[in-house]
């Protein structure tokens, strides 16, 4: 059953409100948070397939590595791009 209320989530420390049915990927992109990860060469990348095949939209969602295109945005979620997580190391 889809959620019917707006969700407030945190994207790299920024709080954003999204409509029901929004994926975490769309929330990131609407917030202008792209590229989502750096590749081995350090080049910027965006999501390619939008359907779970390419894995280029992975981010850490509530501590777990997830494909954001397959992850529905939910209230209270904490999303961190790999780019941001990598900066801590």
């Amino acid at each position, binding site marked *: 059953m*889809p959620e019917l209320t707006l969700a407030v989530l945190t994207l790299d420390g920024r709080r954003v409100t*999204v*409509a029901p*049915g*929004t*994926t975490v*990927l*769309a*929330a990131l*992109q*609407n917030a202008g948070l*792209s*590229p*989502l990860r750096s*590749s*081995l*060469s350090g*080049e*910027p*990348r*965006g*999501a*390619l*397939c*939008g*359907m*779970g*095949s*390419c*894995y*280029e939209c*992975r981010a*850490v969602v*509530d*501590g*777990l*590595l997830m494909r954001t*295109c*397959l*992850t*529905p*945005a939910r209230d209270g979620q*904490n999303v*961190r791009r790999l780019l941001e*997580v990598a900066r801590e190391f």
Partner: protein
Amino acid sequence: MNSEVWDAVVVGAGPAGLMAARTAAEGGLRVLLLDAQPGAGGQIWRGAAAGQKGTAGDLLRDVAAHPGITVLSGAEVMAAETRERAHTLTVTTAAGLRQIHAERVILATGANERFLPFDGWTLPGVVGAGGLQAMSKGGLNVRGKRVVVAGSGPLLLAVAAGLRQKGARVLAVAEQAGLTGVAAFGMAAARLPGKSREASALAAGLLGVPYWADCAVVRASGQNQLQSVTLRRGRREIRLDCDYLAVGFGLVPETRVAALLGCALDNTGAVRVNVWQATSIQGVYAAGEVCGIGGVDGALLEGFVAGCAASGQIERLRDAPRRADLQRRFQRVLERSFALRPERLHTPLPATIVCRCEDVRHGELRGFAGWTAAKLQTRCGMGVCQGRVCGPACETLYGWRFEGARAPLVPLPLAQLLDEPTTLSPP
């Protein structure tokens, strides 16, 4: 690990899978319907609601309400095997692994988009045509965004019309096929009642949008983000400033689960089935795009046939062979009309990345005889997508047939393999 037994398992909850599940349940089977997406509907019916007007709403409602069907969303098959008449699927879910046994399996695993590399295709803003459609259905705001849609196949038109409806400014649709092929497809579509209605609606939604046949992407340009696309049309190069390039070169059947179960494929790379949608493995049926790219009407029909065959409702299939023949003819026209013409497509530069996961470039891959050598020497196809993106690209560019399906089909947390809870502490 949970272990369970079902009468039938349907893999994929798009049109073919939903139809197969409903039909098999009507025949008295206890059916488990699995899908990787968070909700049923597949790519084409993504975001559709149970009970809304039309076939999608009807099927979603019937499947949700049928006591004989259990829907498991967010579930991906990571391993599959056949032993005599019994099939076992190991499925990864948020709650851990589940082992599912069934005598009947219906594969409705759909297709992936075929991406072909060109200079700049790794820039953010270059996305799959179906991918951008999926993202917009998932809440991506495309209102006012400048979009170029390019590649090949009727999906481009559907994507362009859908994006325009959501407020995007579609600057052009660039189709690599020639006008003759496009016209042949149009005429074949006009002969099928459902398709002709669909085509009229698409045409109305695309009034004023340039449709360029015989037109290919040369490069995408931008600094850290897509800023413009260069297309070649005849001898002319056209540069369009844009926010998104939605690009796809047709669809490729997703046959990995079928391959693990031992199902034979045909020479196009699709699962080979007979008139009852039965594969070469006893008790395994297949329906929809996994059997060849044919669109939603064909998928529904094949799902129905597979559901009837799996549950022994042969008397319901009287009209099916005639309808299937029509669909197959349409499918053949589709394949011919939008066949990729490598001579018309732009050859990647040596520095163009082909394998996005492992940053392997065209210059490193030319000259290898096949996948095995290329994988060993370059790691092409060994990244997280396991060749889902670069596999079809290499098949087109170098003639390699990707035959490397092996478990696990998808990356999964080590904790799941160790049968431990997968929740980690937030960083």
